[in-house]
Structures are given as structure tokens and as C-alpha cells.
């Protein structure tokens, strides 16, 4: 896509576009240090291969969604070149908030030095809680209610031992600061959301592990929502896959985002930089968002990026993002997503159980 190509702005359609133009003024990733290879899980449960990912990232004993969001938020602030005082929201999207009742957002806000004058409620929508908060942040900034809003998508996902999800349920995520276009590293040109009541995956209160609708998780759930959201944003803007430099999708495994990418007309080269599930697993609320951070780490001015998330239950948020000039200088102010991926200590299944609190100590 040429730099001078404009994203069309229809008078009134399905797109979500605020009156005041907004963008990403800071971004930051977090991946914990530990990795559990899929073949180590297979060793325990007698599976020989055909794994959905190579390995997954595992949070340490002293980590949770709050501590990981704090680090991603600090990275976002370093790149944003604003003071935490200027934030008007600190929103954490997750399905593994440490408390059932007590917001994660207030602890994160206190730790990063945000003021008391903020919104700090937690968000939940399976794996799209973070991008749902991002749309709200666009609305808040775009309406002029506040200049800057921080949103995180972060999870310490749990799969039932022996279940297919155990191979992929991982820890990690990202934070973004949404602000006015003039201070942005990348503009958010438009977003669009597509939801329906689809029972593919859920967790009832007081239950430790989620349930899922087995084969029901593919076609009517992930593919239907990701494709509908992406095709609608294409239709409403007149853009097509070839206009984009990169695309990133929710990534519950390696194959789903590769397949939807192909269906929508993207090449493997457009998908590769944001496809992190093979080496960190499915970070749930963090999955699409951390993929976007890896793309922002390499994107050049004018590059168009499509991000489409997916959350069970179900829905997708699709965004068209365009890299701006300050991105090139500002990205070096914090650790890159690949820096976190390169920091890797392999663990065995017993250590994994210990880190995830599965060993009874009393």
C-alpha cells in the first residue's frame, strides 16, 4: 500500500470510527520466561505428535494477570512518551483475573503511577476481552472524554489436564495506550465488531477449567466470526488483503490463523510476523494483541495492518491500523516482543504443575 493511499471514510455504515481521530500512542508486550514443549505434554498423556503448537509460555510462581499487565503497561508507557498522570482509563481484559471480585485495573494503575481520576473496571469476553476494551478506549478518546486510555489483554490460561486445550493454553499478552492521532505511533483507521450467541467454550463460576463444544469450536465459532468481521471491514472500507502489509488474527493454535488468512486472501508472508502461537501458545485475551506488538516492532511508515480477534461465546473485533513515522524511533524504548520470546527456559511437566499451582502443599 502506498503511503498516500487513503482509507475511505463512509458517511454512515457499519464501521466504528470516532469523531476525533485516534491511534496507538504506546504499546508493550509481556511473555513469561518458562516454556513447556507440546511433546512434553504428549509424553504424559501418551500422544505421539500432531501437536497444535511447538511449545507454550508458562507464568512463573509469582506471576498472574496483574503482574504481567503491569510489565506490559510499563513497556507501553516507555514508548508512549506520556506520563502515567495523563491516563483516564486502565482497562484489563482477561478470563483469568486473579480475583473473582476486586478489579485488576486498580492494582495495575497504582503500580504504573496512574492517577485516581480514571476508569478501571475489568473486561471479560473470553479471548477478545482486550480488544473489546480497545474499542471502548477508541470511544473514550475519540469522544474527547479523555486524552489517553490504557488497555491490556492478558491471560494465564488453564486447560484441563489431558484435554486438547492443555497443549495451547498459555500465559502472556500486551498493553496499548490509545490516544489522539497527532501523538500516535500508528493510527486506528476503523474498527468493526461481529458477535452472536455461540456456545463453543465457557467456564461456569467456581469451576477451575473451561468446557468446550469439541468440534463445534471451528466452523460456526472461530471461522464464522473472524471471517465475517474481516470481510465486513474490507467491504466497508473498500480495502482487500493485498492492500495490507500484515495481518494478525486470534491464534488458538498454529493452523486456524493460517487457514483464515488464506481464506481472506493473505499470503503466508503477511501472516508470519504476527503468528506467535507456535512458540508461545494461545495467550487467550493476549493472543491477537501480542501478535500486533510483534508487527509494530517491524512495521514501516504507511504499512496497513489488519487485526481481527476472536472470543468464544462469541465475537470478533476487527481493526485497520496504519503505521506512522514516530514508530521507527519510539519502538526501541522498550523490550521487543521477540526479546521476550528469546528469553526461554524449558520446563518439564512436573515443574509446570508446580508453577500452575496444581501441587497440593497443605
Amino acid at each position, binding site marked *: 500500500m502506498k503511503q498516500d493511499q487513503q482509507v475511505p471514510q463512509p458517511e454512515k455504515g457499519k464501521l466504528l470510527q470516532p469523531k476525533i481521530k485516534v491511534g496507538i500512542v504506546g504499546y508493550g508486550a509481556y511473555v*513469561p*520466561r*518458562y516454556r513447556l514443549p507440546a511433546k512434553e505434554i504428549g509424553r504424559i498423556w501418551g500422544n505421539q505428535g500432531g501437536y497444535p503448537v511447538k511449545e507454550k509460555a508458562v507464568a*512463573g*510462581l*509469582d*506471576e*498472574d494477570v*496483574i*503482574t504481567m499487565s*503491569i*510489565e506490559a503497561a510499563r513497556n507501553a508507557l516507555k514508548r508512549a512518551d506520556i506520563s502515567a498522570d495523563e491516563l483516564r482509563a486502565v482497562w484489563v481484559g482477561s478470563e483469568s483475573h*486473579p*480475583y473473582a471480585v476486586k478489579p485488576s485495573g486498580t*492494582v495495575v494503575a*497504582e*503500580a*504504573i*503511577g496512574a492517577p485516581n481520576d480514571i476508569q478501571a473496571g475489568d473486561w471479560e469476553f473470553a479471548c477478545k476481552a482486550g480488544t473489546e476494551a480497545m474499542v471502548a478506549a477508541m470511544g473514550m478518546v475519540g469522544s474527547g472524554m479523555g486524552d489517553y486510555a490504557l488497555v491490556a489483554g492478558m491471560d494465564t490460561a488453564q486447560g484441563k489436564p489431558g484435554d486438547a486445550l492443555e497443549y495451547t493454553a498459555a500465559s502472556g499478552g500486551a498493553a496499548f495506550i490509545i490516544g489522539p492521532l497527532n501523538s500516535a505511533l500508528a493510527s486506528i483507521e476503523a474498527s468493526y465488531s461481529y458477535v452472536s450467541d455461540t456456545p463453543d467454550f465457557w467456564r461456569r463460576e467456581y469451576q477451575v477449567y473451561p468446557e468446550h463444544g469439541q468440534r463445534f469450536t471451528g466452523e460456526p465459532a472461530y471461522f464464522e466470526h473472524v471471517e465475517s468481521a474481516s470481510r465486513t471491514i474490507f467491504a466497508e472500507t473498500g480495502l482487500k488483503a493485498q492492500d495490507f502489509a500484515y495481518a494478525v488474527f486470534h491464534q488458538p493454535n498454529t493452523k486456524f490463523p493460517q487457514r483464515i488468512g488464506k481464506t481472506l486472501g493473505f499470503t503466508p508472508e503477511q501472516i508470519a510476523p504476527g503468528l506467535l502461537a507456535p512458540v508461545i501458545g494461545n495467550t487467550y485475551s493476549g493472543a491477537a494483541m501480542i501478535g500486533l506488538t510483534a508487527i509494530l516492532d517491524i512495521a514501516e511508515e504507511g504499512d496497513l495492518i489488519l487485526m481481527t480477534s476472536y472470543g468464544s461465546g462469541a465475537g470478533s473485533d476487527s481493526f485497520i491500523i496504519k503505521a506512522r513515522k514516530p514508530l521507527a524511533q519510539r519502538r526501541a524504548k522498550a*523490550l*521487543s516482543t521477540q*526479546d*521476550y520470546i*528469546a*528469553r526461554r*527456559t524449558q520446563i518439564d511437566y512436573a515443574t509446570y504443575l508446580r508453577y500452575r499451582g496444581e501441587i497440593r*502443599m497443605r
Partner: protein
Amino acid sequence: MEVPRIWRLKKQRYALQGEVCPHCQVKIFPPRDVCPECGGEAKTPFSFSGQGEVYSYTLISNAPAGFEEQAPYTVAMVKLNEGPLVTAQLTDLGDEPVRIGMPVEMVTRKIRNDGDERGMIVYGYKFRPVMAK
């Protein structure tokens, strides 16, 4: 239960917030409102960078109550770049051996549960090896 104390110490524990002496510019941690150098009143908040190096360390195998689940772990005296020494747990060591002079950086982590898993989660500073860019 020590909820009021956890609440009172949150700024210093979450973000290494200390003080700077307005008279002699010495950086103070933990905050004590009186300068240890000149004895003057020192109540100006100062946020430490979180960068420092290991000054001394020890391996804890028999952990005190509330920390058993984390043992064995390393506790270090960390010399902050701004001057003060702080005692804290080291984390995310992986396979890296600890050594005196090792550069470390502050991270905010779970310190322990207040009581059992029904109690508050206490968050605070730990240090990890400085990550490679």
C-alpha cells in the same frame, strides 16, 4: 490479616517509590521522612528507576511462613543505581547463576497470600536479571 499495612505500603512496594532529601539530594528507600545523611526532613516522593546490581545474596531453603510454596529461592541485597540498598527476592533466574555485581531490574510480582488463598494477594518488588535487548 494485615490489610491496612498492605494498603499503606502499596506505593513503595509496587513501584519502589521512596524519597529524595531536599537539602542534600540523597535518595531514600524505604521512605522514612528523615534524611539518613543530613538528618533533615525529607518527604519529597522519588520514584526509583528499578535498576541496580546484586550486592550480596543467599539461598533460602527453609522459608518462613507464607513463603513455603516458593522455596528454594534467592534473597539479595540490591544496590540501587541511585544509592540505597534494598533486600528483595530474585526471580526469573532460569538457569542463570547469581553473582555479586550482577545487573538486575525491578519487577512487580506476587509476594505471598495474606493468610491462605482466601486472603489478599500481596504484590511487591522483586528483581530479575536485566533482560537482553
